Each structure stands twice: as C-alpha cells, then as structure tokens.
C-alpha cells in the first residue's frame, strides 16, 4: 500500500517538474518562466520528498527529507527574487 502511495506521490512530483520545464522553455518572459520554475521547485520537490518519506518510513529519514525540501525552497526563493529584480532592471530580457 505504502509503496503505491510513494509511487503516486513521486509521479505527481515528476509531473510538476515536467510542467515546470515545459514552462521554462515555452513561456515568453522572465517572470512567467520563474513562475513555472517555482512550481517545479516547490511542489515537485515537495511531492517527491513526501513520496520518498513514505517509502523510507523512518522518522529520521523524514526529517532529513524535510530539511532538503526546506533548504531548497529557501535557496529557490532568494534566487527567484534576485532574478526577478534583475529582470525588472533590464527590461529587454
């Protein structure tokens, strides 16, 4: 049961990554690309971490994975902010 749940969660996560990548490639300007990317980063990684936590089943593993997700979100937030600000300053990009 938990295996199937894990697979389902990871697949959902992967689909977010896929959508994010398609968005990154297809969207016209920096802001909308960032929008697509953050979906992949936050939700995609979140679902994959959740799936792995279910698969792993241990408490320490879950905490580790939670850490991974939180740190990645933190870095993503700041870098997305910096990129967006740079895009505002240089409108031709």
């Amino acid at each position, binding site marked *: 049961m938990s295996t199937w749940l894990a697979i389902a969660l990871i697949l959902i996560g992967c689909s977010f990554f896929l959508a994010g990548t398609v968005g990154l490639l297809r969207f016209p300007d920096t802001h909308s690309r960032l929008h697509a990317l953050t979906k992949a980063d936050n939700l995609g990684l979140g679902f994959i971490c959740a799936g792995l936590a279910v698969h792993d089943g241990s408490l320490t593993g879950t905490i580790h994975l939670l850490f991974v997700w939180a*740190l990645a979100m*933190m*870095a993503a937030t700041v870098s997305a902010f910096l990129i967006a600000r740079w895009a505002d300053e240089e409108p031709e990009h």
Partner: protein
Amino acid sequence: MSLLSLIFDALLGLGLLWLAWRAVSSPGLFASVVLFMVFGFVMAITWARLGAPDLALAEAAISAGLTGALLLSACKAALTDTGNDNELPDEPSTVRRRWPAALICTGLGAVLSIVMIQVAANRAAVPPALAEAVTTHPLDNPITVMLLDLRGYDTLLEVTVLLTAFLGVRILLEQTELPRLHAPRATTPLMVDPLLAMATPVLLMTALYLFWTGMEAPGGAFQAGALLGALGVMYTLTGRFEPLDRTPVLLRLGLILGPGMFAIFACLALTWSEWPLAYPAGATGAAAVAIEFTLMISIAVTLTLLFSATPGLHARHMGVRHP
C-alpha cells in the same frame, strides 16, 4: 528491474557525453560553462548511482559547485576586464585543426573505451592485506584510513598543491592591476540578509557534522572544508568579505596551517616511531582529528581566497546587518 537500471545507466552515460560534447563545442563561453556545471552534477549523480556517496558528495561540492562558481566568475571577469557591461567579449570560437584532431580523438576514444571496458571487467577483489589493515585500523571509515594514514603522504602533498595554486595566483595578482571581481556593493538586495542569516548556521553545522562523521562514515575534512569554502564564497559575493591588497598574517596562518601542521607531524613522528608520518600508538584518533581539523581550516581559507581572486579578505560590518 535490470533492464530498467540498464536504461537508466545508458541515459546517464549518454547525458554525460552529450553535455560534454556541447560544453566543448558550443560557441558561447557562458553556454559552455553552464553546460559544464550541469555535466558536473550529472557526474555526481552517476557516482552516487555507482555506489560511491563519499565521492558524489565531493564531486557535487567541490567539482561541480566550486568549479562552477570559479568558471562563472571567470565569465564575469571576462566582462569586467574588458569594461563591457552586458556582452561577453567575443570568445574566439574558431576551431582549428578540426579533422586531424577528430581523427586522433576518435581513434583514442575507441581504443580507450575497449581497453577500459576490459580492464574494469577484471573481477579484482580488495587485497586481503589491505582489507585487514583497514578493518583493524583505529579509525573506522576506510576512506579516512586511506586519506590520513595509509596514503597520508598524498594528502599532505595535495593540500600543498592547493596552497601552491594560491601562491601562484598571488604572484599573478602582484604583477598587474586586475579589476576587482567582487567589489562591495552599496546596497545588498532585500532577501540576501535573511538567507545568509539562515544559511550560515546551517552550513556551519553541516560542515562540522561532515567533519565529525568523517571518522566513521562518508564525509571528512575535504567535504567540510569545501562547504566552509562555499560559505566564504557566499560572503564574498554578498560583500560581507571585502578584498584586500595584502594577505594579513592571520589568513597566511590559516593558509599554511594544514600543510604545515601535517608536515610537522610527519617529522615529529620520528620521535615516537621509526617512520615519518606514523601515528603514535594509542593516540591515532586524536591525532587524526587534529590533523583533519587543520586541513579543513586551510582548505576553507584557500578555496575562499582562490574564488575571490584577491590576495586577502576581511570582514565588513559583521553582526550589524540591521542597524
């Protein structure tokens, strides 16, 4: 399952080849650098896949991460040095001697891959003497046993190589006025302070954890030093470390601490043993921790300085970020 893993391996291998090919053949400098960084991360995944977490960690931190940062700052240097704001100078993309080189490399690649497949297929086991030496050693992690004791001499020389690279860079910087790469900014962007405020303790903790755990599990001075170096790089990039024209004595001490203490230890070993570099009986663990700690400091300091491409750094308004 094995078909699946075969497909996965093939995808990784092809991905590596494709990225490497694009990195060496793509005309733009920036594109090549980014492709190389991706190459580094795929390489780290490959090593993890091969069951070498130690190495994957080092590859991700040092090779992909720090080399990537170095290369990106080389792109930035190409901008600053030419006084050009936005556009990378024409990185000469001319390709010469394409056909002879292609012929040589195809031949070499073919011969190498055939021979390497053959060699790797030898089912060599770890020699029993080595396995025994590693398992009976006072230190628990086989890699640490090799790095600090059995092949400690190589490690000593390797940190000396790192120091020598800095000394060489130092000579270059003394020869000419290269524009500063990471000039301090008047304002720091809004989100950077909170990120650093959170990242600093996390990175410090992780580095110390890696250092400590290196005694029995994957990790060690190198990974920890690289992480601390990464922290230093972040501080340099955000202007918390300011470039200097000279190397203050404390930094010099930090630079030579690792190779210096290791070399002194190697000589002192003659007082308690017949051989240089031998560990004192009964105090192996303590000596190893002490050496690893000095190595970690030196690696962190040297990597930070190498990245900043300045003779020295000093801290600016530490702790008063929110007046």
